């Protein structure tokens, strides 16, 4: 790139360009995609985003919005401090809480995906049909693509799950309790008893 990228010829430069694009984004936007749009190196995007996020957090005052990296990219969010005011403006399904049963089921799916309802039931010791339906409706889990082997439907968490949990990837999930036997052991444990 010998020429100056177009974005650098504008008064606000890359920082303002990123603000504009992220303002219309209705889902996280990856750094790679932004690099393509602005025709600059990805590293410049990363640096600019980090600087922006930093600036919003309080160069002169903490802004009402923050820039966060969740799921697979960056997105504008309202800042927690103003949650009361925001929620008095928007009241949607967003804030509906998850039941204990839903959270436990979600945890099993998050750590064991892709996983069948039978396996989840075995781990939780109860039937999970209706809870799985709730999680599907909420968009927190989805059916794993059919393997075509006639096996039971498997479930996995979605990108939206990552967003809702404020995680960038599944790797950020904290490890399960250290007392737990190794994952491999449990797999065999599960299948020894509960395979149907």
């Amino acid at each position, binding site marked *: 790139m010998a020429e100056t990228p177009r974005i650098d010829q504008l008064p606000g430069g890359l920082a303002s360009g990123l603000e504009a694009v992220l303002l219309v984004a209705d889902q996280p936007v990856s750094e790679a995609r932004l690099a393509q749009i602005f025709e600059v190196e990805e590293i410049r995007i990363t640096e600019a985003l980090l600087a922006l996020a930093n600036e919003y957090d309080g160069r002169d005052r903490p802004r009402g*919005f923050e820039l966060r990296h969740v799921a697979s990219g960056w997105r504008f969010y309202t800042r*927690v401090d103003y949650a009361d005011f925001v929620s008095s403006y928007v009241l949607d399904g967003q804030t509906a809480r998850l039941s204990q049963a839903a959270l436990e089921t*979600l*945890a099993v799916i998050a750590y064991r995906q892709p996983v069948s309802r039978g396996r989840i039931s075995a*781990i939780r010791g109860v*039937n999970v049909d209706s809870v799985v339906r709730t999680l599907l409706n909420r968009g927190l889990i989805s059916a794993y693509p059919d393997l075509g082997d006639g096996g039971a439907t498997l479930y996995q968490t979605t990108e939206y799950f990552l967003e809702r949990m404020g995680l960038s990837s599944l790797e950020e999930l*904290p490890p*399960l309790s250290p007392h737990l036997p190794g994952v491999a052991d449990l797999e065999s444990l599960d299948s020894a008893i509960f395979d*149907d």
Partner: protein
Amino acid sequence: MTATVTSPVASDDAQPEAAADRRFHLELENFNGPFDVLLHLITARELDITEVALAEVTDEFIAHLRALQARGGDGLKMLDETTEFLVVASTLLDLKAARLLPRGEMADDEDFELLESRDLLFARLLQYKAFKEAAALLGHNYDAESARVPREVALEPRFAALLPELVFSISPEEFAAVARKALEPKPEPVTEVGIGHLHGANVTIAEEARALHGKLSAHGTLDFGALIADADTQLVVVVRFLALLEMFRQKVITFDQPDPLGVLLVSLVDAARLDTDALDDDYDASADRHRLQPAGADGEQDHG
């Protein structure tokens, strides 16, 4: 908040007289199944999960199971729940029984099996505990994130106008067909959680009883180890054991155990008494008879 489990009766801790009254009384609806109850019972006693005072916990657990059954309710759901509890309860009972017997040397396979079933129960309990902790973390994250709202608004008109003209040529009739399909009640997904996973796909007490009957008819007397030698899963072992208990009740066989924790001999006494239909009635909910659930219970699933 290390390894503690939120106790639905935690408020009781504030009252000394409630702490003294260690009797088991819980809001059943607060629990998420047998592991939840078991964990609660253990933590309520501040016991190390690996050194549970089995006898006490077992008694309370059985009491809980009774309460659960007394509660009644939707047939299939009750059956599911009850059977789940039964698995845990029967394992606990097994272990309690072993504790009551004199401690001996590890004599044979049965001891190992007992140990194995204990380990299995604890492994499952630990596993559940780990997931419960993970759930608490996820719940915390979820609530924290609820305080942030992502920007997601409709496009500004000038950008919406840029979108390529929509190809949208569907007749009202075709559109209605789409609506019909979308609004139709979805067939319930096949339930995988009948009691199928308890008995495996095709392990039933009645069948195992028939098989045991066959073996005993051929040999007259066999020890328990021989009767389960070809069982390829724990489940088959458990079901055969239950089958033997039933056969004992029907006076088909007798048991003889010369030494504590020694070899358990099983002898055929009256082959003609075996009534496997009765076993179907009692145990096999996937057979045509459904004695354990009210006739015409709603939400019955097709297992197939």
